[in-house]
């Protein structure tokens, strides 16, 4: 077994995984350095989400190793992985995935409350982060009364408020319009840089990937040098059609 490099906060070696037999990852290795923003790019279905699930301990890869700060994640039991996720990781999904019963500040404070922080302290931190993300005015509203962009910003605030070591953002702006998209990404990246939080960002958008320090392109569950495919000629299907007519 090779010891992971010291300056990598997350380090993965030859991850293989399949969902009920359908292959998702075929031997991906990567290292995430402390404090960097790493973009995992590739088209839909190339294994970005599965890779993020494996790195964040939500899935145990069928083969391969995942290390976090020189601690093996792939050998941990479910309870330890849960705790690791709660204490050190943040997760931003394409959907806001807020708890509909809780209002905005309660949703933001939830990770802190789950860690056992006191009510007052959690509320103070949550309100601060909501102010920073320009949604302080709707701190007492329920998620269903807000706009999609505002809800996604709450999800970002929820991930940031717990000041995790690593935030995994899986297509965080996929359901947003362009103006909301830049706003969400700007707040996420600037907050991460100012607080030294590492971000692993999965995206299929080259524009978003340009914000990252480094890019890891994936294609069909493998790490490749580039995802630029030869352009498909327009007439490929038509010729076949015209033959059959």
């Amino acid at each position, binding site marked *: 077994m090779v010891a992971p490099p010291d300056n990598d906060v997350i380090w993965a070696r030859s991850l293989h995984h399949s969902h009920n037999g359908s292959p998702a990852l075929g031997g991906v290795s990567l290292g995430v350095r402390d404090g960097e923003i790493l973009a995992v790019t590739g088209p839909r279905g190339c294994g970005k989400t599965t890779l993020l699930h494996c790195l964040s301990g939500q899935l145990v890869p069928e083969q391969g190793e995942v290390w976090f700060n020189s601690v093996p994640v792939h050998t941990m039991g479910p309870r330890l992985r849960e*705790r690791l996720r*709660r204490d050190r*990781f943040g997760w931003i999904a394409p959907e806001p995935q807020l708890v509909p*019963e809780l209002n905005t500040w309660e949703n933001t404070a939830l990770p802190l*409350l*789950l860690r056992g922080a006191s*009510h007052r302290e959690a509320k103070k931190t949550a309100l601060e982060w909501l102010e920073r993300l320009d949604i302080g005015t709707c701190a007492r509203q329920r998620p*269903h009364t807000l706009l999609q962009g505002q809800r996604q910003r709450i999800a970002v605030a929820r991930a940031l408020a717990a000041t995790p070591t690593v935030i995994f953002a899986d297509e965080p702006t996929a*359901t947003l319009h362009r103006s909301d998209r830049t706003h969400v990404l700007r707040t996420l990246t600037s907050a991460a840089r100012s607080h030294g939080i590492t971000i692993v960002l999965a995206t299929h958008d080259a524009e978003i990937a340009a914000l990252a320090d480094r890019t890891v392109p994936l294609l069909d569950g493998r790490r490749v040098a580039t995802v630029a495919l030869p352009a498909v000629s327009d007439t490929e299907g038509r010729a076949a059609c015209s033959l059959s007519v």
Partner: protein
Amino acid sequence: MLALRLARGSHPLVLLRRLLVAAASAGVGFLLLCALGYASGHPAHSAGAVLRLLWCLVPFAATVQFAVAVARTDPSTRPRSGLSAVGLGPVRLAVLAAVSTAVSCTLGSMVALLFYLHLRGDLSGLPFDGAAAGLLDAEAPLPLPAALVLLALVPLAAAAGSAFALRAEPVSTAAPDDASSEVLTEPEAPGPTAPPTGLPWGVALTAAGLAIEAYMSRGDGRSLLPLPGRLDATPAGVLAGWALTAAGLAVAGPGLAHLCGRLLQAARPGAVRLLAGRVLMDESRRIGRPLGVVCAVLAAAAAAYALYGTAPRPLGPLTVLGAVLVLGCTTATLLTSALEARQAREQTAQALLRLGAPVSALRAATALRAAALLIVFAPLTWLISELAALPLTV
């Protein structure tokens, strides 16, 4: 045909729920047939026959409520991507739910007919042939059209009820078929409903029912609607009072559950108390009504036991069957509603787990909810049963 195909491939638990509906429907069908047999066997006692038929309404209502609750939790009748992709919208799904419910209820009714004929001795060749010929008035012929009409009542009512229940609710979000699929177009869960407002009405109805019962039980004990069999001396007014009390509890249930949730999340809650309380507040409508009904049924059972439990042979076999049906159906309805609430919150639970919330915290929240409801509703049941039995025992 689609209903049958979907039933064939469904989970054993779903099939078990359907089987329970069929069993309840069989029980009610049996009771209805017994009432019919009594009517054809005793033409002189027509009032008694009508009375038996009327008493069948209670298990009938409980069974229909259970069938509707099962139809609401049925995975094959909720909007889902697989069926909506082939163009089955909410209307067709309501029809599908009605057909599935009708199928299971009809199955139960057929079993009831066979069992009834068998016990009467009309069908031979099996053990217990004609074992209950005396009880079931075997000497009188059974009018077949009447029997078929009575047996069709449960399937028709349950099918109509489930179609209406599924049509009435707004189109809920299609749940992803498995947890691993990340559906990008998944809409956010619909907003929570307004808090229930029925608590004052429920309390007023319950109080009025208890008052009517106390007032009527003072009278000369005229028995207009005596329970056939043993419980002969129940005045009609008392029963009307009981019906009002039960309705009041069913109306007050959601409000009480909401109040429980509100108290649970009050005063600087931690994560578990916050989640438990808020979820209870939002689920109060779904959970509260069956809980109120169970509360009323249990109070009635406790009061009946206090009044008649000491008699040497208090209940006849058919009364026991009816009581078991009512108790079983209302309890099963409550459990099914709890299951429905859990299904509706599945996505939230997934999101919480993704945040790293420990499974134990979610379980603790569920246990806390159940405990809060128990703490409020158990003394309430005891109080109502005591109040209901009080005027009849003194």
